[in-house]
């Protein structure tokens, strides 16, 4: 490629790789499918080349070269697996273990620890150090972070994250040599910062651990499911870490278009509601003789009968910005089928955005729900206060048909919907208001179903089910789809993919989109999205 000055070709472990000029050896090796061990290097941070673990053998170079800062040059021959390169790493790893306490059995990082991995793969079997290890004990850094100084490998990723990405230098390295340790300034700690959970993620060892997750589960017991953070309209890509059908923690997934490698603490720690035990588990149907739990077939037959009886009444509908695009689209179709009408939704709004200064396209947005934009694109209207309450006065005493999807109506008076001719509440949880509903239909939360959210920039992103739905709860798009199919004699969508694909025919923003186009990174809707809502 000598005639093309923007790319170079080098050989890594006998494999030719062509990369852009200026690429480091470590990134070139990644392109070639070789993972050069490293601690201090992180894709989202600067490279100080201080962990010395990414040393590789470069033919012609007089000494081992750190792959994370050495730029690849044309015709270079690099060995990452040669006896020499392994020797470099074995030596470095031995030094790491001089002061490491080897307390893997009680360390939360065990199972996802880079020191454990590398030493297991390439390190010496037995330590030769006979000197006593230095002991720091553990330190509370404030916020959600605990620091175990003995386990630290001094990669300074956390210090650089706070300085370069969060731009609030709360951490630093104090002392020198083998006494050096990460510390906070005086008693300030990390309290009050909004992104410090990320330093737990990027810590390659168990030096920084989450208090929330402390000793809760082992890394190898957790099942990971790709999902989308439901806490604001940014739509950070996350994965749900699940054990025993309970979400144990949320971790960010890489997506440079949306959240880079990061997520905020607000979203990270806002998952307990997914594990609530007081869920609706069976369709509840109210008649003169009282409320009765039924099977779906019976309940939907009763609903169709009631819907036919209530035909002609005006429809007022409430949706939730926590419901997926598929659910909202199906709900819209249900409302149209019963005569049509406005659909409103309520969404809490924070006082201000919390922007990640080093990655300004990422922020904890003001709208504290994942799919407000989706609801807007599907023609729904926002009502209520910034706390996500009120605004339903028209619906509460409506005497026609009242349909509620997803909104638990927690703030509503116990007589909400009591005068309605037909009140249907599709919800995950019951509230005082749902006692008035003629039909309470249990639906799943986003963690229990497949679907997609539209974030504030109009990016549609998919999520997958991570936990089992309780009892007979089913996704709203499925429940509504089956009902409408019965009512109109059409076919119900058989999957979330079909349900999503059918959105396009009624709603131009989604026209022509399908799950295949979204992939794991998402895709933008067809029409430019105004930022008026923010």
């Amino acid at each position: 490629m000598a005639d093309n000055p923007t790319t170079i070709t080098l050989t890594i472990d006998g494999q030719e790789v062509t990369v852009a000029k200026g690429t480091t050896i470590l990134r070139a090796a990644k392109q070639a499918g070789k993972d050069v061990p490293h601690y201090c290097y992180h894709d989202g941070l600067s490279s100080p080349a201080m962990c010395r673990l990414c040393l590789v053998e470069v033919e012609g170079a007089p000494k081992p070269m750190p792959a994370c800062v050495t730029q690849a040059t044309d015709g270079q021959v690099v060995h990452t697996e040669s006896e020499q390169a392994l020797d470099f790493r074995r030596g470095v790893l031995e030094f790491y273990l001089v002061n490491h306490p080897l307390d893997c059995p009680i360390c939360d990082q065990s199972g996802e620890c880079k020191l454990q991995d590398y030493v297991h793969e390439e390190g010496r079997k037995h330590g030769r150090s006979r000197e006593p290890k230095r002991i720091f004990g553990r330190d509370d850094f404030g916020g959600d972070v605990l620091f175990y100084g003995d386990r630290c490998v001094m990669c300074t990723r956390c210090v650089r994250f706070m300085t370069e990405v969060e731009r609030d230098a709360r951490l630093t390295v104090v002392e020198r040599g083998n006494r050096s340790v990460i510390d906070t300034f005086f008693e300030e700690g990390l309290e009050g910062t909004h992104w410090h959970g990320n330093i737990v993620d990027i810590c390659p060892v168990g030096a920084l651990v989450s208090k929330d997750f402390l000793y809760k589960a082992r890394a190898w017991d957790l099942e990971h499911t790709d999902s989308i953070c439901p806490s604001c309209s940014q739509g950070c890509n996350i994965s749900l870490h699940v054990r025993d059908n309970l979400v144990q923690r949320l971790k960010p997934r890489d997506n440079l278009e949306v959240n880079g490698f990061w997520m905020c603490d607000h979203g990270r720690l806002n998952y307990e509601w997914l594990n609530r035990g007081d869920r609706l588990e069976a369709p509840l149907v109210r008649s003169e003789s009282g409320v009765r739990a039924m099977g779906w077939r019976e309940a939907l037959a009763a609903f169709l009968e009631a819907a036919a009886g209530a035909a002609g009444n005006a429809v007022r509908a409430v949706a939730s910005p926590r419901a997926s695009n598929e659910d909202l689209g199906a709900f819209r179709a249900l409302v149209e089928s019963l005569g049509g009408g406005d659909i409103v939704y309520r969404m809490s709004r924070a006082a201000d955005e919390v922007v990640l200064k080093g990655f300004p396209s990422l922020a904890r947005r003001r709208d504290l729900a994942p799919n407000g934009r989706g609801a807007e694109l599907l023609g729904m209207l926002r009502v209520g206060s910034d706390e996500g309450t009120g605004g339903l006065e028209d619906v509460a005493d409506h005497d026609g048909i009242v349909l509620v999807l997803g909104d638990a109506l927690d703030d509503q008076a116990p007589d909400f919907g009591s005068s309605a001719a037909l009140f249907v509440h599709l919800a995950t949880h019951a509230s005082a208001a749902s006692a008035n509903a003629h039909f309470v239909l249990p639906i799943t939360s986003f963690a229990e179903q497949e679907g997609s959210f539209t974030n504030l920039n109009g990016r549609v992103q998919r999520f997958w089910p991570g936990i089992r739905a309780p009892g007979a709860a089913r996704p709203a798009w499925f429940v509504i789809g089956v009902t409408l199919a019965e009512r109109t004699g059409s076919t119900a969508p058989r999957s979330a993919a079909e349900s999503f694909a059918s959105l396009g025919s009624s709603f131009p923003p989604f026209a022509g989109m399908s799950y295949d186009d979204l992939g794991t990174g998402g895709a933008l809707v067809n029409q430019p999205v105004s930022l008026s809502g923010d």
Partner: protein
Amino acid sequence: MAITVKRMERPEPERTSYLRAALSGMALTFKHMVNPVKVTQQYPEEQTDLHPRWRGTHRMEVHADGRPKCVACGLCPTVCPANCIRLVGGEDDQGNRYPIVYEIDEFRCIFCGMCQEVCPVEAIHVGRHFENAEYTRDRFVYDLERLMEQDHPTALLWDPSDPRSE
């Protein structure tokens, strides 16, 4: 085809007589009458000597102050092929990792001893013990307290003088 008849020679009467065998059997009987060899063990008055590597119901080792030695590392439930160990870890008042729940279902257990082998702090052991009768089935799910109460000797998983079985 001509038929040939094979003529069997009948053995001599002294070879076919049962008298010799009966006498030798009775000789053995009389020998034991005057010189008895004890083979019946009077269990339970007399207890059996179990092999040092016998693997029976579990036992949890405790520290001198009565805390379990277990640090809730999660290796035994991970390695257990019968999936009989339930462990929920947590933090105690001194900030140590410890098992909030530690249960072994001795009915599911196949007594392979891998939990003892994998334990990094030598807390869980299989025991040299076999008398496990209970009146109810649920008594066979041993909780942490019960495991700590057990006081039978623990199994040796290998011979210390010959650790590699050579």
